[in-house]
């Protein structure tokens, strides 16, 4: 997030798109509710009538995958009505003229055809966003899990840039990170394109820095993504060994059958986890890790706050911290630099190599008060990014055009399936599913179907149906609810018994290779 | 009308919740779960909050037969007059009791739908207008009741026949400041009981920033033994309207509301007719009496049965559709009233007095009082007395004069044992203290207060502990439940007056005193502060009766 969580109580206009925040980030959502109670207006763009939509002043139930069209038309309205922040544009951005002339073509009427919402509502959304002072954007995977995920994000950046809503209290562009330490995984360099602290792998100086630190020549170009790696599993000149730490790849990733086959074709698969997950079951060796309440460590939240995790009880059985297990394997392979004695030593090494953590160490984060970047020991942290300048100079407008999803509905697969999460479950339920009481609230997966569709398709509430995509089919119980719009159904992938990700995976964003989990044409038929 | 039509009709108007709930309650005879859900969605009030608010009010029914089932007054005076017996006889019609419904100068009132019937027994119930004040027995110049007995007084021509709206006409010919000065000089003060100077209140609202401002008439006359506002509104509605328009002119207010208690259904019709007449005559509406920019629109909001809504903070919350708790003060309504904007909240009697004062002058009004006291007060006199009714007395009149000379004294062969003050809120006066004069300084020096001016007479037949128990039960029933001293204190005092809680006199007294002193010192509003005056005065005048009660509990 560009802005701290506390800023969420201060927007004048809230724009939530592709975020089911009350279910996926419930505590953050409480801050938006407070802002609304204080008089803020909220626009929610989401195909479904999620709880956030019920709280909204304007709900735009756009067709899945039509975000770019909506955002272009909003930009069109803002530009046409003179609601741009000229001073901000001149002082801090580049390529604005090209962008402003680009959006002239994309009227609300045009977008209305694609998004399947009234042009007047799109017009209103543009006006409200442009008039908001400040206007803040919140998004989650509903924006990124598309073949045009990058386009979606850049379209949002364009909106924030043209209205000067960056670097100010209550504004900003705020992706809500999904997992407790997904931000931290990136911070630590567990990505193929960045070393720790977002130092680019393609930058020779950075590669040089880490080569020196690690005592080995490291390539000065990015590695392949997980998606590519899985595609290459078992192939000639492909991937033959994988070390997986704490991920139930088979259940959470798209195209489950492909994923399972990939892992099964490896020569060597080592999995570190708390439980014998569906993924661990495919491994050659499984190591028991310590988890929550047993592990000392650090994690970074969605507002870049670096916080301490503390062990409260002894490790269960012989389980060990992940870092210890990884270090032990590395040592046995003869890799130098893994003589860590404690989590503190690991974290402090990270700080010494990461410019955003340079001012931090294990002891300084005792009280959770730092939000990175913290470039030196005298720095008090950076709750709000982009306040005076952008890291890379000027904010660049991007010229984006609308593209259809990778797969669109047709006679064979006439229904849009979109997937997501539910409040009571976390991902594949390895933890929530093993905590008592959660079943009382959510005991099974269901397919949410609009009442009109249920009638048209002759489906009863509670009936099991067959749902098929181009990749596979599953059986799932129907729940009739107004929450789903006509023509679109929804399910989560939490329950292993209803492996929704057998169906998904029709396409990937060409830049990030994030899968289009939010759009998947399906066919629903009676059993 | 369908739910949706009802909601659409009201949702963009001020104070929509109570009108919407009443419309559905009138249509369906009760408020169903479904209706509450629809209103919650339509008015965007969280469901649990709306449910809480609906269950707060005594008169909203949640099942059938609801509104149509008889509600029988079992107030303190009606209990003396057979209210409980009537309730019993109407049990077959699903009759339920209701607290004092403001007709203590008449037979027992029974509410059937939107009509009030009165009678001494269930068989003799009849629908008729409420009693007019008797001609002033002291032959003293009156303010409020000056013309109330004139024929057709409730119509616009009837009102205008004696100079009605003349005061308003001269006021708008001059400045708002001049009107405020006039009211200030008259020394008119809040006749609902609080006694705050009316001119000062109007000036505070006139000076307060924020628009639109409101004039709210507190017509939620809920104090047991008080029925004066009923008489004014039923027989002289234009006097109230003129007072409100004057207040609006003085303060620059555009919105007016009469918050009328549920138990006065016929008066809603009478007031509405008068408002319609005033609108037609350009006494209400836009550019009133030709004065450019002087706009004032008046509406009636019907309450739903909650004594606490006579407390101004609760009243404002109730109008706003919030839970009707008293508000924390400061801030006060003069700056943060209806919708947190400057608001005058005045009692019916206060506003009606202002109409006369605007016509006859400040000096005239001041001089109506005896000795150093300014003006008059309507006393609602009821209970064991020859001629119960509303009497407009000059401040400073001896209580004995009112009781004996004006109202004919005790019933044949009886003596007056005690009287209540301020309805029930002032507790009892008895013994030598019955020699008070009717003004706040004198009555307060006797540990009580005059308040809204309700006096219930209890003669020598009455069991004083029972009377105190009934009074405290009322307060417990009406406690809103927000502040601890009142919520728990009224309950514990009621129990102690009922069965004595197995206590010896000394311990009983000790508990009563401790509860009383904490209620008086720390309660959040007047209800909790006043309720212990009942037990305090009972202990002061009737310790023997208490000892008797404790040794022979019920």
């Amino acid at each position, binding site marked *: 997030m560009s802005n701290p969580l506390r800023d969420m109580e201060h927007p004048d206009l809230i724009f939530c798109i592709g975020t089911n925040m009350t279910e996926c980030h419930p505590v953050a959502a409480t801050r938006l509710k*407070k802002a609304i109670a204080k008089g803020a207006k909220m626009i929610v763009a989401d195909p479904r009538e999620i709880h956030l939509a019920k709280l909204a002043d304007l709900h735009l139930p756009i067709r899945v995958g039509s975000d770019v069209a909506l955002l272009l038309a909003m930009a069109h309205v803002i530009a046409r009505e003179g609601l741009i922040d000229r001073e901000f544009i001149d002082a801090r951005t580049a390529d604005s003229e090209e962008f402003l002339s680009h959006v002239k073509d994309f009227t609300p009427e045009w977008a209305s055809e694609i998004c399947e919402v009234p042009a007047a509502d799109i017009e209103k959304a543009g006006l409200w966003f442009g008039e908001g002072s400040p206007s803040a954007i919140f998004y989650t995977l509903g924006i990124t899990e598309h073949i045009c995920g990058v386009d979606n994000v850049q379209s949002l950046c364009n909106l924030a840039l043209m209205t000067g809503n960056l670097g100010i209290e209550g504004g900003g562009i705020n992706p809500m990170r999904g*997992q407790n330490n997904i931000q931290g995984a990136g911070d630590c360099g567990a990505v193929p394109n960045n070393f720790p602290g977002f130092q680019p792998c393609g930058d020779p100086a950075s590669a040089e820095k880490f080569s020196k630190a690690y005592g080995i020549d490291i390539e000065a170009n990015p590695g392949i993504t997980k998606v590519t790696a899985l595609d290459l599993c078992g192939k000639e000149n492909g991937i033959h060994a994988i070390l997986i730490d704490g991920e139930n790849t088979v259940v959470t990733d798209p195209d489950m059958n492909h994923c399972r086959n990939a892992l099964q074709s490896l020569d*060597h698969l080592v999995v570190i986890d708390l*439980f014998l997950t569906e993924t661990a079951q495919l491994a050659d060796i499984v190591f028991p890790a310590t988890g929550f309440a047993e592990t000392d460590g650090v994690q970074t939240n969605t507002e870049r706050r670096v916080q301490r995790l503390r062990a409260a009880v002894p490790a269960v059985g012989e389980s060990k911290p992940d870092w210890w297990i990884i270090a032990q394997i590395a040592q046995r392979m003869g890799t130098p630099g893994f003589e860590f004695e404690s989590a503190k030593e690991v974290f402090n090494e990270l700080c010494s190599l990461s410019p955003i953590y340079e001012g931090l160490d294990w002891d300084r984060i005792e009280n959770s008060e730092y939000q990175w970047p913290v470039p030196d020991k005298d720095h008090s942290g950076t709750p709000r990014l982009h306040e005076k300048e952008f890291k890379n100079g000027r904010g660049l407008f991007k010229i984006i055009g609308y593209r259809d999803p990778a797969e669109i509905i047709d006679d064979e697969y006439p229904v849009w399936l979109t997937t997501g999460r539910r409040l009571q479950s976390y991902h594949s339920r390895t933890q929530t599913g093993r905590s008592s009481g959660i079943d009382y609230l959510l005991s099974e997966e269901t397919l949410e179907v609009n009442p009109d569709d249920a009638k048209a398709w002759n489906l009863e509430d509670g009936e099991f149906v067959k749902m098929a995509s181009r990749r596979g089919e599953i059986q799932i119980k129907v729940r009739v609810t107004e929450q789903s719009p006509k023509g679109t159904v929804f399910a989560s992938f939490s329950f292993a018994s209803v492996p929704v990700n057998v169906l998904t995976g029709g396409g990937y964003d060409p830049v990030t290779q994030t899968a289009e989990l939010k759009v998947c044409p399906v066919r629903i038929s009676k059993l | 009308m369908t739910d949706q039509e009802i909601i659409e009709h009201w949702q963009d108007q001020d104070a929509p919740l109570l009108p919407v709930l009443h419309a559905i309650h009138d249509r369906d005879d009760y408020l169903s779960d479904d209706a509450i859900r629809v209103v919650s969605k339509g008015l965007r009030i969280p469901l649990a909050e709306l449910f809480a608010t609906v269950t707060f009010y005594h008169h909203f029914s949640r099942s059938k037969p609801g509104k149509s089932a008889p509600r029988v007054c079992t107030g303190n005076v009606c209990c003396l007059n057979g209210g409980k017996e009537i309730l019993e006889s109407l049990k077959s019609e699903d009759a339920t009791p209701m607290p004092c419904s403001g007709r203590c100068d008449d037979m027992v009132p029974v509410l059937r739908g939107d009509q009030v019937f009165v009678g001494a027994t269930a068989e003799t119930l009849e629908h008729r207008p409420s009693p007019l004040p008797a001609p002033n027995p002291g032959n003293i110049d009156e303010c409020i009741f000056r013309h109330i007995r004139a024929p057709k007084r409730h119509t616009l021509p009837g009102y205008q026949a004696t100079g009605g709206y003349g005061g308003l006409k001269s006021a708008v010919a001059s400045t708002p400041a001049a009107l405020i000065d006039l009211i200030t000089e008259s020394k008119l003060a809040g006749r609902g009981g609080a006694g705050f100077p009316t001119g000062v209140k109007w000036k505070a609202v006139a000076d307060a920033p924020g628009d639109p401002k409101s004039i709210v008439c507190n017509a939620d006359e809920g104090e047991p033994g008080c029925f004066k506002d009923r008489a004014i509104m039923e027989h002289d509605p234009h006097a109230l309207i003129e007072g409100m328009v004057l207040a609006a002119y003085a303060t620059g207010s555009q919105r007016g509301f009469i918050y009328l208690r549920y138990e006065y259904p016929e008066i809603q019709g009478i007031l509405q007719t008068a408002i319609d007449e005033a609108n037609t005559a350009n006494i209400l509406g836009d550019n009133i009496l030709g004065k450019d920019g002087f706009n004032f629109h008046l509406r009636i909001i019907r309450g739903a049965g909650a004594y606490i809504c006579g407390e101004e903070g609760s009243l404002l919350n109730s109008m706003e559709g919030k839970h009707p708790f008293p508000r924390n003060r400061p801030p006060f309504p003069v700056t943060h009233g209806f919708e947190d904007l400057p608001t005058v909240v005045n009692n019916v009697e206060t506003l009606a007095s202002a109409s006369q004062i605007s016509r006859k002058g400040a000096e005239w009004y001041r001089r109506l009082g005896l000795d150093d006291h300014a003006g008059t007060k309507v006393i609602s006199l009821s209970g064991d007395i020859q001629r119960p009714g509303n009497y407009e007395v000059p401040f400073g009149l001896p209580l004995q004069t009112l009781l004996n000379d004006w109202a004919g004294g005790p019933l044949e062969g009886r003596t007056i044992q005690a009287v209540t003050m301020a309805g029930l809120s002032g507790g009892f006066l008895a013994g030598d203290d019955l020699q008070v004069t009717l003004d706040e300084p004198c009555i307060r020096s006797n540990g009580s207060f005059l308040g809204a001016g309700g006096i219930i007479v209890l003669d020598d037949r009455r069991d004083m502990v029972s009377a105190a128990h009934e009074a405290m039960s009322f307060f417990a029933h009406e406690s809103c439940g927000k*502040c601890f001293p009142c919520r728990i204190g009224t309950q514990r005092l009621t129990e102690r007056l009922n069965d004595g809680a197995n206590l010896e006199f000394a311990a009983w007294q000790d508990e009563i005193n401790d509860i009383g002193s904490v209620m008086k010192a720390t309660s959040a509003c007047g209800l909790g*502060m006043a309720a212990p005056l009942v037990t305090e005065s009972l202990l002061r005048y009737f310790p023997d009766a208490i000892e008797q009660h404790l040794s022979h509990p019920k």
Partner: protein
Amino acid sequence: MNQIADNTRICTMTLDGDDVKFCEGETIYEVAERHSKEVPTLCYDPRLEAFGACRLCVVEVEGIRNPVASCTTKATEGMIVRTKNDTLDKHRTTLLEMVASENRNNTVDELAGYASQELGNLLKRYPVLPGRFAGKKSGNSNTDDLNPFILRDYDNCISCYRCVRVCAEQEGDHAINVMNRGFDTQITTEFGNDLRDSSCTFCGQCVATCPTGALTDKKAIRAKDTPGEVKKTRSVCIYCGVGCSIDILTKGDRVVGIQPAMDGPANEGALCVKGQYAFDFVHHPDRLTKPLIRQKDGTFREAEWDEALQKAAEGFLKVREKHGNHATYGIASGRAPHEAAYSMQKFIRAGYGTNYIDNCSRA
């Protein structure tokens, strides 16, 4: 939070005889609290709008006849305030005796909830006579509500409205409110339904703010009779990316409950159903306790660490030998701490000289 805006006026008042400074807009209670005055309260929660129900916080203000509720009264320049004297103590004692008289039970286990000891502690602090003001009890426990998280033991409810207010003001769910009024006030959902059938999300904030244990953490209270002291360890929730601060409650070697950290910067006392109640997977019998090695027949066998680590290392070495550095890939976790992610990327970069490392953010 407690940031002082540049334009805030600094004023002075007299507090128990001392001149003290305060910022315009502060309540008497806030000023007194800052000066460690120990003004008692039951309906106060610093995160909520002041409510003024319990009246325990009343203080004397010179020039005002009755004591005023310090939580709802703003401090003003020159105000002379007394937070403690015999009269105030007497009122507070009487109020506490009255409150104690409406409950079935004023001693509850600390596992009931974060604030559950507040009433009990005040009853100890003041010279309260047990059994005074005996009478009808308020509140009806709703033990039919079979939800596994929140015990609704309203026999111990004192109608302070903290649960109602926290649900509305903090959580924004408005799931609970009251029914009726006065002594008959009952905390309830709409129409008296079970919590599951209301808009309750089981965030547990009502439990955390309840000062009497009328709302009790059903999961934590299971460990009431487990021997040992309750220990609290500050940590962070491991579900979504918001990073709510929590206290892990333990007895011996067991995690017995979670409480929100009121001073947690991300959550300020809030949690959700997962963070609050989904913790006992830690001790689930499915937890792996030893390394597993796959056997020829495809099944796993438990192994000692040394053997498993050696085999893991050998497997990686073998693949490197056969296929080179670009044949091994690392997938780090978005759930594990930094030390895991950092070690994973170092395992690949320092071990192979490649950037063949990713995490689960693409799914």
